[in-house]
């Protein structure tokens, strides 16, 4: 593997991890939005607070990691993406800002009307962010981002590949979140809530699966380069993804939530990897290849050193965080605090 391809792979690993962990956080917005009124939805909203509260900021950093790697390793292509996809990017950014701020505000809001307002912002922006990030992916994958000059600000992302990309992103995020929240609800011994989430997640899974199937034909016409490889070298990934997606639904149906999390992660990982393998060796499909877009060699080496440092520093710390959140004392929403 060339140096540039290694850095691109490291960057894309960030994309996969963001899609999984950041995606599961964003996906909780759908369930929050449809949880019902203050009384009916209260338990679910507290569960969401508790599930994503400790981890969402860490999961969010994968996006920073992707951006930083993109502009440092492939500066010209980064500028091109930012130039052409200005609108979906700034709308995704709006969602990111509103989601994070409103999530923190809601938790400490003093009154129910305030919590409602912040909650609506949190849930709504959780939905628009994955949509526009998916649309950005669709624009890159369908070859609509020219390396030089600015592509069309609107039509570059208003086309079947981007629209389906956005919808599939919302669907996969919601599926991940649904499976994780269902498992969390059972872990905090709230079986009625788990039942409700299970039913919703099954619907989300079916809709997402249908979306992926429905997207095949339009993407085939709209993004020939991508679709050629999707049906070629990336085909095994797509098959694994379909099988894992089906398995997730079956496991949910049979209330095997713990293992359903694993199959959901496999399904989403394979979808995202499929996109990556589908567009390799292009960085911007039909415009510039990874090797051509790469910046200075010394910088690429520097970035691999950053990857090594992250593997030593970040990965164990993240593992510790996730381990803690799954441990017994952390599974209860109210900590057992000493008496006043």
């Amino acid at each position: 593997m060339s140096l540039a391809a290694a850095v691109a792979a490291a960057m894309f690993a960030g994309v996969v991890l963001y899609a999984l962990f950041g995606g599961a956080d964003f996906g909780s917005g759908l369930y929050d939005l449809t949880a019902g009124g203050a009384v009916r939805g209260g338990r679910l909203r507290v569960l969401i607070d508790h599930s994503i509260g400790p981890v969402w900021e860490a999961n969010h950093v994968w996006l920073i990691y992707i951006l930083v790697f993109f502009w440092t390793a492939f500066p010209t292509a980064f500028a091109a993406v930012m130039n052409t996809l200005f609108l979906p990017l700034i709308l995704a950014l709006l969602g990111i800002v509103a989601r994070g701020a409103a999530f923190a505000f809601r938790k400490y809001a003093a009154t129910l009307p305030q919590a409602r307002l912040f909650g609506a912002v949190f849930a709504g922006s959780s939905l628009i962010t994955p949509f526009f990030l998916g649309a950005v992916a669709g624009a890159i994958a369908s070859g609509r981002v020219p390396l030089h000059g600015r592509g069309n600000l609107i039509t570059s992302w208003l086309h079947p590949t981007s629209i389906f990309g956005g919808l599939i992103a919302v669907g996969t995020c919601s599926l991940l979140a649904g499976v994780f929240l269902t498992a969390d609800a059972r872990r905090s011994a709230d079986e009625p809530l788990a039942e409700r989430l299970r039913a919703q997640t099954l619907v989300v899974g079916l809709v997402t699966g249908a979306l992926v199937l429905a997207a095949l034909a339009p993407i085939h016409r709209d993004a020939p380069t991508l679709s050629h490889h999707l049906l070629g070298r990336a085909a095994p990934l797509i098959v694994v993804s379909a099988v894992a997606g089906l398995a997730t639904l079956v496991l949910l149906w049979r209330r095997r939530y713990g293992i359903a999390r694993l199959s959901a992660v496999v399904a989403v990982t394979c979808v995202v990897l499929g996109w990556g393998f589908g567009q390799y060796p292009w960085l911007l499909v039909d415009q510039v290849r990874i090797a051509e877009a790469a910046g200075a060699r010394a910088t690429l080496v520097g970035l691999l050193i950053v990857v090594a440092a992250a593997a030593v520093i970040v990965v164990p710390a993240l593992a510790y965080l996730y381990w803690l959140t799954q441990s017994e004392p952390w599974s209860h929403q109210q900590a057992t605090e000493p008496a006043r």
Partner: protein
Amino acid sequence: MAMTSLLASASGPAGLLPAREQMALSLGWHIILACFGVAFPSMIFVLHRRGLVHEDPVAIGLARRWAKVSAVLFAIGAVSGTVLSFEMGLLWPGLMGRFGDVLGLPFAFEGISFFVEAIFLGIYLYGWDRMPPRRHLMMLVPMGLAGIVGTFCVVSVNAWMNHPAGFRIVNGAVVDVNPWRAMFNSMVWLQFAHMWVGAFMLVGFVVSGVYAAGMLKGRRDEHHRLGFTVPFLFATVAALAQPLIGHVLGLQVGNDQPSKLAAFELATRTEGPAPLRLGGLLIDGHVRFALTIPRIGSMIARNSFSEPVQGLNTIPVADRPPVNLTHISFQAMVGIGTLLAVAVALFWLARWRKVDLLASRWWLRFAVLAGPLAIAALELGWVATEVGRQPWTVWQVLRTTDAASTNPGLWWSYAGVVTVYLGMTVGAYVVLRSMARRWRSGERDLPSPYGPGAAVVDEAESAAAGSATGSGR
């Protein structure tokens, strides 16, 4: 922001002015939260440790509250920092497209420190009563270290813009890129020290000011005394160190960026020994309203009784920064910094002579004001260094007109950014105020109004909510 409108250039690309406005607003907003990310964990550590070691319930209570406050502040800090990451590309494609692989490496390392900060913040916030107390306390240590590394990395990029290194330009192409030399450029250490210490000044004065305000309202308990003293101690050390660091940094600016120094000092022509011009404006090429003190300018700016300060007359007109804004911002920053340093020295001197200034309402009023003053000094410092570097984005390499986006739609995104930041400011203010009110009324854990701890609210709402179930929120 008004300051950037002064920089309006008739000849720049369509996106130049809105890009500047948007960058100034989002950077100026984020920098305050970034300071909390850098300095607040250390202050919480001191209180939390005191609470554990001395079994001091007041200190533990403060640490618990500050942890909850930091949950709000760090969240909006994280998202407003993300805005800046996007803006690097959305607003300045001419900088990132051409120099991304030169300046990017410190950002990548900053990513690691951001990870560490976010991970241990999550553990610390949710670890209360769920972890062994000593280990829980230790979760603050990586956060403090991440603050140091993160500050260094981000400031490194700005220092590189002031003192570009690690590349050559041959026939317009960027060659011989060495990102390590770019990262460890000669400006970085002093600029880092200046910013890191500035963060402790800002947070120290703002937080101690909150408790000074409480004391002014007659809340003179141990809680307020401790809540004032710990951040004020941090602010003291920082405020006393800052003038020295700033002076040494200023000397280097004089060597490297003569046009910036000339603007700082309002030096229209080269003079040696140069006077110090306090205040004043440059109007039609003449200095007006300045208090001129002979020789001191050379002493302060050049560490010499006679060495000249290079004047603006030696700089081509096209390469001069906006002089008045740079000069006023710089001197206001120095003035506030000096005032704060004198004030903290006075406070501890009085304490040493057994006079407790906390008993004085005038002192408490000043302590409240010190918070906004420290914020102003930090913002003014950034205005001075950024505006003083103009017309360059990368000093003598890349003009700001060539760095900015050509997107004419940027005014819309600027309007959006203004709206969103206004909303976030109001939201943070409302939420933090109501948190303080609930704490004062005796609540401790601040349960969510929709959560299980809020049964009273639930019942009150149940009639209305029951009939509206499913209709959303």
